[in-house]
């Protein structure tokens, strides 16, 4: 199915900030999203807005992006209702629209209420311009592969809805394989990309340059780890990573922990945290610390930490609240689920 209309959220999606937070100086357009939107416009795809903002936010976005919005739904109701109204207004089929939103909850709500729509995170959208759904002309093999990955995700989601059983049973049923390995120089570009793009699962919120990652991979005082994910629906490739500073003491510090949101809900972050605890234990460390910037955005990461037995010891200044989550590792390291394949210390 070819997408005819992209419906954009504004805050932290088409805009690089929150419109109402700075009324005097509203945020600029997000460069990556604006580039994607402009490319799609040139292919004849139209744009619309669904935003929790006053109507002037859409007018502002139109002015700074130069995009013509065929419809704009601004208000505080359900996003799925806004999507339905836009579909009706423009007289297009629901399966010919894509909805882009940075907020996981809004995406879940629209996926559930308008299952025909293509629902994407901004991270997905940056990729998706090359997918067959957005490309009336010929597409590259890589773009086709990524488009297929999205189709696999939809299929997995549909199966999950009708599956009766626990999450672990579902992961087993899917033939989930999580592979945890030391990073090599070849992984650096993808690790860099993850550090730029991941937001919900990122402890620092800061991009790490490729040169720095290359040094960390080569450094004996650091352990850089990659996590790959696949199941019988498809292969997601490298979806996460961590950097540990081993230091000289008995405390292992995870200076960076990150995972793509496309791996969310599939046991990946929990597997990585359990593996890190086991790995620290085998190396003679007694505690594993994870300093983590506390923000509403990476709250899913805090859920994973809490669920994996980590507790926060302290918290930084309000302008940069960093909490150090930690757990003892000696004695009884957590079991790794059966679907985790780990090399070395795991």
């Amino acid at each position: 199915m070819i997408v005819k209309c992209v419906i954009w959220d504004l805050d932290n999606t088409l805009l690089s900030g929150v419109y109402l937070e700075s009324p005097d100086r509203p945020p600029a357009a997000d460069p990556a999203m604006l580039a994607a939107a402009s490319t799609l416009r040139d292919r004849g795809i139209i744009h619309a807005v669904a935003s929790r903002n006053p109507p002037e936010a859409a007018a502002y976005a139109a002015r700074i992006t130069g995009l013509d919005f065929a419809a704009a739904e601004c208000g505080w109701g359900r996003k799925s209702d806004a999507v339905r109204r836009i579909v009706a207004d423009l007289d297009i089929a629901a399966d010919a629209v894509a909805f882009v939103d940075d907020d996981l909850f809004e995406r879940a709500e629209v996926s559930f209420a308008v299952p025909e729509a293509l629902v994407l995170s901004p991270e997905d959208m940056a990729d998706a311009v090359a997918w067959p759904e957005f490309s009336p002309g010929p597409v590259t093999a890589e773009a086709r592969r990524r488009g297929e990955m999205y189709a696999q995700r939809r299929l997995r989601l549909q199966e999950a809805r009708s599956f009766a059983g626990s999450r672990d049973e579902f992961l087993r049923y899917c033939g989930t394989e999580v592979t945890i390995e030391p990073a090599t120089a070849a992984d650096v570009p993808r690790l860099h990309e993850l550090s730029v793009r991941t937001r919900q699962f990122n402890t620092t919120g800061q991009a790490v340059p490729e040169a720095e990652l290359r040094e960390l991979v080569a450094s004996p005082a650091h352990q850089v780890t990659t996590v790959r994910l696949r199941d019988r629906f498809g292969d997601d490739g490298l979806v996460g990573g961590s950097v540990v500073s081993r230091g000289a003491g008995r405390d292992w510090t995870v200076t960076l922990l990150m995972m793509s949101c496309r791996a969310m809900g599939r046991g990946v972050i929990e597997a990585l945290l359990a593996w890190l605890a086991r790995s620290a234990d085998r190396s003679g460390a007694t505690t594993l610390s994870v300093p983590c910037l506390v923000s509403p955005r990476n709250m899913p990461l805090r859920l994973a930490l809490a669920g994996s037995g980590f507790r926060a010891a302290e918290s930084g200044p309000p302008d940069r609240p960093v909490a150090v989550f930690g757990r003892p590792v000696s004695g009884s390291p957590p079991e790794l689920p059966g679907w985790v394949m780990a090399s070395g210390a795991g």
Partner: protein
Amino acid sequence: MSGATAPEVTGELRDILVRATGREELGGIGDQTPLFGDGVGLDSLTGTLLLREVHRRFGVDVAGEDLNLDALSTLATLAAFIAERTT
């Protein structure tokens, strides 16, 4: 919602949990069943959906007030956390 008692909140939380996880059988779990770990197996995805719905329904920002998310231990602890802030 104001003046809700913890038992009333617990009942509603059970419905929210069923919707967040898509698992009907969780409608029968006890107030003291751990939400993390075996059994319910709340994870970052289902936990996020649960907390967002709690925020929408009760106006309580659990993640904003509870760094370690201790309120998510059981339905009873979560209901008590909400009831304290809505009465």
